[in-house]
Every structure is written in C-alpha cells, then in structure tokens.
C-alpha cells in the first residue's frame, strides 16, 4: 500500500484493488485498496465525479443492479469476501442511506422502519416488530417526534425527519455498517446538524461510512477521511491529521479550495 494510506488493524471493511467501470475500460474507481476502522465515522471526500459514490455502492453490491457496470478486485466485510456472500445477507449487514430521503410513499412510518422485513416476507411477531420500530426510531432520535403518528404515511414528515426515518430503516436489521451517500445534501442546516450528531452517536454500535462533498462536515464528524480524485484513492488517514497536514499536494489543494 501507498504511504499516504493509513493502515488499520482489524478493519470491518477492506477493499483490495477495487476498480469499477461504467463502460468497458472507462474506470470510475481505480485500484482502491483501503481498510475502514470499526466503530468509527469515515468520510469519503472528493470533487464531484471522483468516484466516491461509486466506491460506496460497491460495498453492498448495488452495482449488480446495472448490467453494464463491471467491478474488479475484492471487498471484504467482517473478513468475508462479499462476492461470495448471499447478496441479501450482505445488504442486511450493510444498510444504505441515500442522497434524497426516500421513505416508501405507500407505507406508514411504522411500516417504513420494518420495510426490510416486510419486503423480504420475513414474518415476525407483533411484539418483536414493535420493539424493532421503537429501538430503531429511538436510535435516530425520531421516536418522541413520531410515536403518536406511527401509522401516518412517512412522506408527511419533514425532509430531515424523513432522512432520519430512512436511517432507522437501515438500522432495523442491526447492520454492521451504515453506508451513507451524501445524506444531508438535500436537507436544511438545522436538520443536517441533527443528523451529524446522530451519526457521531451511532458509531458506538455501528461503523459509519459516509460520502460527503462538504469538507466542513467531514471535519466536524469524521474520525477518518478518505480523499478520492479522478477515481483514485489519493490519501486516507485520521481526519485531524489530514486537515491540518495533508500529505498529498492534491489533497491540500482540494482542502484549501483550489478545486472541487
């Protein structure tokens, strides 16, 4: 590994020479090898088009939904090669939160939280469902706001609440990792800071891997930062170190606003 890339002991996620191409030979992610620390918040930064979302989406094998996307290299989750895992199990271990809040419009708040169980046709007892819903909503600090309207449609909530509902939905399966793809880019500042606080709180039980185009957000809440540029992993290390003393010229230029 390159010297700008921090080595992590007992990583929860590891990638080895991960490359992803949208068309044959046209790589959006190039040979990325990185280890992600357990129970931390790791931010993936970089200018738009640098491959950060593409990288994130490789971890729960979302690229398989699209035939033309080709993935090379390996990704390990909890030490296991994800390409050899059942995709359903993998996606339950690695919950995903998207750029725009996307609760299921036909489902109530309650059903949205347990949507994973409903979609997969997993039958659990009412009591167990209630517990999952309460725990997940408590985890995202949404319980007090919605406990009296659990059976209203999730789309009646504000944008920030909807996004927290989507995080709760990802937490319902008790995943190891939560993958967030610019989760606050469509949300107002107050709601954003709530979600940031939430993510810091959640790292106690989960590993948070988050794409962000917002440097100050990465500086505020992440423990580790990953800087990508033109599909390459340029630098990876403790956020504090990277922001005060970037090792690569490109990282420095990005952080000082020379491009991006």
């Amino acid at each position: 590994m390159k010297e700008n890339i921090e080595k992590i002991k007992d990583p929860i996620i590891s990638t080895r020479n991960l490359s992803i191409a949208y068309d044959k030979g046209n790589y959006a992610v190039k040979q990325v090898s990185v280890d992600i620390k357990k129970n931390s918040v790791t931010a993936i930064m970089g200018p738009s088009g640098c491959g950060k979302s593409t990288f994130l989406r490789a971890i729960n094998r979302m690229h398989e939904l699209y035939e033309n996307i080709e993935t090379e290299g390996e990704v390990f989750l909890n030490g296991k090669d994800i390409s050899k895992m059942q995709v359903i199990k993998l996606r339950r271990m690695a919950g995903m939160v998207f750029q725009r809040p996307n609760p299921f419009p036909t489902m109530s708040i309650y059903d949205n939280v347990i949507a994973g169980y409903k979609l997969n046709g997993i039958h659990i007892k009412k009591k167990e469902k209630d517990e999952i819903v309460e725990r997940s909503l408590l985890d995202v600090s949404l319980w007090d706001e919605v406990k009296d309207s659990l059976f209203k449609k999730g789309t009646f909530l504000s944008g920030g609440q909807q996004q927290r509902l989507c995080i709760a939905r990802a937490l319902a399966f008790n995943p190891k990792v939560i993958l967030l793809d610019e989760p606050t880019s469509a949300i107002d500042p107050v709601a954003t800071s709530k979600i940031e606080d939430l993510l810091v709180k959640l790292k106690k039980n989960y590993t948070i891997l988050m794409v962000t185009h917002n440097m100050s957000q990465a500086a505020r809440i992440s423990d580790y930062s990953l800087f990508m540029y033109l599909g390459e992993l340029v630098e990876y290390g403790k956020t504090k170190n990277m922001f005060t003393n970037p090792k690569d010229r490109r990282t420095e230029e990005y952080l000082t606003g020379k491009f991006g």
Partner: protein
Amino acid sequence: MNSDKITKIVLLSASLIILLVSGGMVFSLVKGAIPTFHAFGLNFIISNQWDPSQGKEAYGALPFIAGTIMTSVTALLICLPLSFSTSLFLGEYFKDKKIARVIRLMVDLLAGIPSIVYGLWGFYVLRPLLIDLGLPNQGFGVFTASLILAIMIIPYATSLSNEIITMVPNDLKEAAYSLGATRYEVIFNVIIPSARSGIIAGYILAFGRALGETMAVTMLIGNANVIPTGFFDTGNTMASVIANQFGEADGLKLSSLIAIALLLFLITGIINAIGKLIIKKMA
C-alpha cells in the same frame, strides 16, 4: 389593442366554443330523448323490449346496456393479464433492452390502427377461426366482440401502465434493493403499490374506451336486440345499436336511439368520475 388583450380574447373564445359545443351536445341529446322518456318513463332503462312494429312500438335500453357491460367487462378481463404483464416487461424487466423498444413500438402501432380495420380482421380472420373452434351463431356474439375489444384496448392499458411503472423513482427501487429485497419483491411491494393509482387510471381509461367502441363491435356482435343469455350469444351494445339503426330510424325509434346515446354518455361520464375519485383517494 395590445397583444396581451388579443391573446386573452382568442384564448377565451376558443375555450367558450368548447363549452358551447359540449353544452349543445348535451342539450340536443336531452331534447331528442324527451319523446322516449315521455312515452316510457324511466322504464325505458329497465325494459328489455325493442319492438318497432307499427302500432305497438315499444323500446327499452336494457338489452344494450347488458350487452355493453358484458362485452366491456369481458374485454377488460381478457386484457388485464396480458397488458399488465407486458407493461411490467417493458417498464421494469427489460426496460433498456432492444426487445422492449421493439415491443413498445408494436404496442403503439396497435393503438393507432383504426377501429374498422380491427372489425374487418375480426370478421374475416378471427370469426372463421372461432367457427372452426365450434362457436355457434356463425362466430358472431358477445365473446367474439369482447375478444376484438380486448385486443383494441390492450395498447391503451399497456402504454399507460408502462409509463407509470417506468416513472417510479429509481431512488425507491434502490432503497428496497438496499434492504435486501429481490427483484420480485421490489416489483410487487414497491413498484406496483407506488404505481397503483396510475395503473388503475390506465384500466379505467381502457374500460371507458371499450364502453364506447363502436365499429368493430358492430361488425362482430351479431346485432340481436335481446339480452345475451350467454357469452357465445349474439347481442348489441349501446354503441352498436345506434350505428346499426340510426339510418332508417325516425319518430319514437330515433328518439329512443338518442336516449341510448344519452345513457351511454352518462355511463361513461360516471365511469370516468369513479376512476378519478379512486385516483384521488389513492394518491
């Protein structure tokens, strides 16, 4: 006068003309139907008599209302599984594939074929086929008419529900996939529920079209002025009886045909209103 004013006047008069035309249409239908309702009252709707013999003229719309409902509902039932599967095939399973483009083109082509061509094809190709299969009445009847109607409404139902299915945000599908849902689960638990009202709207539109469809049905239903006793029996729909008999009708008979037209107008209006209500409730 400035151009703003001119635009306003032009737009306003165009809209008023539309209002005038539809108002005038209702007015003349009502006016033309008055003698019939004067002679038979509301019994006209529930009577199954259709007897033009001089001196004992008696007219009732029930045979045609029954024929219309029987053919339209049967056509919808035949159309439903075919168009629904096709729209899923086009809108989701093979969305970006070449074959989907080809099929979509064919579906659009089907929608553009004039009714008389369907009728002719039904008369000379479909009907002999059905006779060979043992259908009575020279292959004429409710079933044959429904079959051709179904083929005619498939493109409408298909292209509308396909459009709605394609419009379900990718965000939602990805959210479901990210929760470990399989494609089947995404289709039945996310795509169809989200597209539900649009899909229903498509079928209501198709049903409305089936109710009023005239030419092809007239050529195939057998034109018997009685309530069909079975699916292979001959009959008449509200539209086909008008098409068949308006040429030689006068007096009370003409008034009765106009009354049937008025009823058809009302029924399609009600069907559309119900459809819109359902959509409003589900949205």
